[in-house]
């Protein structure tokens, strides 16, 4: 009796296992010969060659990342205008909080074939979703639709698809720029001249050591977690982070990276950074707003956070051009807007994505006084609003500096996967604690990152 029961159970297990295998690992084309994208059955028009055609009507979902709280008015206006221009459409707006689980949620949505029709992505998620075939190929489905974007911006939205081909699978949207922000009073207290901020990364680290000498733990130069600086600092210093073919990391081979880790270690050991921030998830914003940091976040948009949370610190905030270092210009990938290849209403989704990213709508948002963002469309950047910025408050200063930088900035930002970034950061943390030499830590970091790179390819 027991044997029969066991046989029955095993049979059920085998059947269920095979079913699981069939469902979990299928990919390519479905049995009926229908079109598939990323393992999901989709409308034939969404994949393959040929321009996407169809009526702009019906209901679509549109997902942004953490924008509803501050910009609800703007987005509701854009949606209302789109629905007015296309009376048979409805756009349902959802806003992801953009926390640490954002990528995981997006992956789960993609696997379940339920990606939002129009979705706001960062460079990492754009790469991953393009590679897995979940995004509409704009070169084939909307040829010529990238002409309104700045050349470097449009170039930045080229990603590798499942077949290894380079395709545009996203429209470049806004970018925030990068600038130095600092507490003028604390800088003076440390004997530094706010009018002459550092122009190189290691120069700023030297200033941080001066701050540590006089601050006596009452305030700090910046936060310790290297996760906020990798790989941006290295790229700015002219370090070759990735090999030309993109198949292996090369950062550990450059003496400049070793010097960078050694300088980070010196700063940490000297007390230029709070010891408890070595692996903390909090960036500089919170401590800066409390008046405990000399250097704030390099994202000018966080100035709004400071203005709202501590107006007295905001008044003391100075803004300067970012340290251009060896690279000579700033880099920064924009945010992207993509259309899901799994959309049941792709013509409407594509139309909305184009409407949202057109010059007029991007400019309208960039003119919001509470934000420092720059549109990806050439026509918007030519607007006098960006050409002659007025005002001397930190926000206006930041807008002025970043607008000037836009003339030379590129979008060639190196994107590390979260796993690669964590693996590299973990090793640098050990070096900063004095548990490893800079060279050993970097060597180990490169080896682990290479392993992950190989695993993901």
């Amino acid at each position, binding site marked *: 009796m027991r044997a029969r029961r066991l046989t029955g159970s095993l049979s059920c*297990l085998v059947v*269920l*296992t095979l*079913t*699981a*295998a069939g*469902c*979990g*690992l299928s*990919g*390519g084309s479905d049995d009926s010969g229908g079109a598939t994208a*990323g*393992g999901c059955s989709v409308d034939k028009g969404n994949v393959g060659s040929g321009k996407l055609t169809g009526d702009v009507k019906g209901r679509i979902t549109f997902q942004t990342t953490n924008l509803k709280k501050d910009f609800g008015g703007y987005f509701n206006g854009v949606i209302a205008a789109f629905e007015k221009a296309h009376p048979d459409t409805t756009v349902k707006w959802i806003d992801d909080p953009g926390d*640490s689980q954002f*990528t*995981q949620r*997006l*992956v789960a949505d*993609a*696997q379940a074939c339920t990606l939002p029709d129009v979705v706001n992505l960062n460079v*990492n*998620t754009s*790469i*991953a*979703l393009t*590679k*897995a*075939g*979940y995004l509409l190929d704009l070169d084939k489905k909307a040829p010529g639709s990238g002409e309104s974007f700045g050349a470097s911006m449009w170039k930045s939205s080229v990603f590798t698809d*499942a077949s290894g081909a380079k395709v545009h699978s996203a429209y470049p949207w806004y970018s925030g720029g990068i600038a130095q922000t600092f507490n003028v009073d604390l800088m003076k207290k440390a004997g530094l001249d706010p009018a002459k901020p550092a122009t190189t990364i290691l120069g700023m680290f030297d200033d941080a050591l001066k701050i540590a000498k006089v601050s006596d733990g009452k305030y700090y130069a910046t936060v310790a*977690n290297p*996760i906020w600086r990798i790989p941006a600092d290295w790229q700015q210093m002219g370090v070759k982070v990735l090999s030309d073919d993109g198949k292996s990391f090369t950062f550990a081979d450059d003496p400049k990276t070793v010097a960078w880790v050694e300088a980070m270690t010196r700063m940490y050991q000297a007390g230029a950074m*709070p*010891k*408890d921030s*070595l*692996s*903390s*998830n*909090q960036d500089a914003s919170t401590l800066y707003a409390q008046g405990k940091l000399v250097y704030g976040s390099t994202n000018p948009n966080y100035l709004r956070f400071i203005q709202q949370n501590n107006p007295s610190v905001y008044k003391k905030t100075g803004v300067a051009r970012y340290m251009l270092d060896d690279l000579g210009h700033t880099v920064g990938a924009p945010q992207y807007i993509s259309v899901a290849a799994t959309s049941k209403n792709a013509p409407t989704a594509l139309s909305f994505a184009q409407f949202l990213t057109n010059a007029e709508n991007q400019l309208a948002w960039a003119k919001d006084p509470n934000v420092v963002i720059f549109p990806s469309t050439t026509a918007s950047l030519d607007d006098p609003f960006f050409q002659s910025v007025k005002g001397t408050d930190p926000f206006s200063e930041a807008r002025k500096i970043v607008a000037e930088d836009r003339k030379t900035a590129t979008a060639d930002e190196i994107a590390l*996967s*979260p*796993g*690669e970034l*964590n*693996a590299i*950061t*973990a*090793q640098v*943390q*050990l070096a*900063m*604690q004095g*548990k490893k030499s800079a060279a050993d830590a970097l060597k180990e970091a490169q080896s682990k990152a290479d392993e*992950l*790179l190989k*695993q*993901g390819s």
Partner: protein
Amino acid sequence: MTAVRTMPDGEAPPTAPAAPGAPAPQSPGRMRRALKAVTPGPTPDAGGAAIYRRWWLPWLWMLPAIVGAAAFGVFPFLNTLVLSFTDAKPLGGAAGFVGLDNYTRMLGDSDFWLATRNSVLYAVIVVPLMVILPLFLAVLVEKNLPGIGFFRSAFYTPVLASSVVVGLSWQWLLADQGLVNTWLEKTHIIKGAIPFLSDSWLILLSAMGLTLWKGLGWYMIFYLAALGNVPKELHEAASVDGAGAVRRFWHITVPGVRTSMMLVGTLTGIGSLRVFTEIYMLGGSTGGPGGADRTLPFYIRDVGLDPLSGNAGYGAAVSVALFVLTLGLTLLAQRLTKENES
């Protein structure tokens, strides 16, 4: 002609005391078959409770639960098992069969063993404390004294708070210039700040503290319910015999709630092997400096879920290892329970 009262299929005939000397009553199955030969199916006059006696009815009531368990329990588990023998990517696509490669890699992976050590340590330290401390709390708040409701609610509040909010509060408490260090320095107990958030061991211990603090109220409720079942007479008799409070606790209260203690032990054992948020909140996205505080779920996220560089196959293999560890702990708890009962 005598009218024959027909029975709907599956309905048992009305039972009546058998007359002495009458043939033995037929079994319900035989009776049903006999009746079925006469009547092909239910007749319109069959009704009442009969309709609730169909053989498939219990299955129908259980169907939602069975479907739920199969869809969200059995299927994902089996899928994970299958995935562990492949090199599947988190975003799907073609996956190749790699045999035992993932398991071989796992055995030689020092990061896996570090995560396993942390998870096991978590269980070894947290489970005994989580079994004992809520019992003390429950005994403290058991009696209906004036204002005791406030304390019961206060102890239960951390259970209701979100893990992220609790994690942020603990970050603030344990920071170098946080409440704990400041107080210890002001009272001259320590001279320099204790590195709760930058030392790997202290991060792990702090995370355990957070788990304990958040779980105490929940398991206190378990024990409060169990304490209600301990006969008061035993306490009274022991008091009359001169047993003190401590003696009564160990010899009456603890044996009285032993079954609940085993349940709490099993539940916290499983829970402590699944810890992620506490480590993430106190140790950051690397899982502490150098990733030294990563637990198995943390490691699974790192190796298996990254859409760009993750390997869902390897992540699944580590998940199977976590399952085996959890199963082992549960079986151990069950054996201990049986030994105690015998």
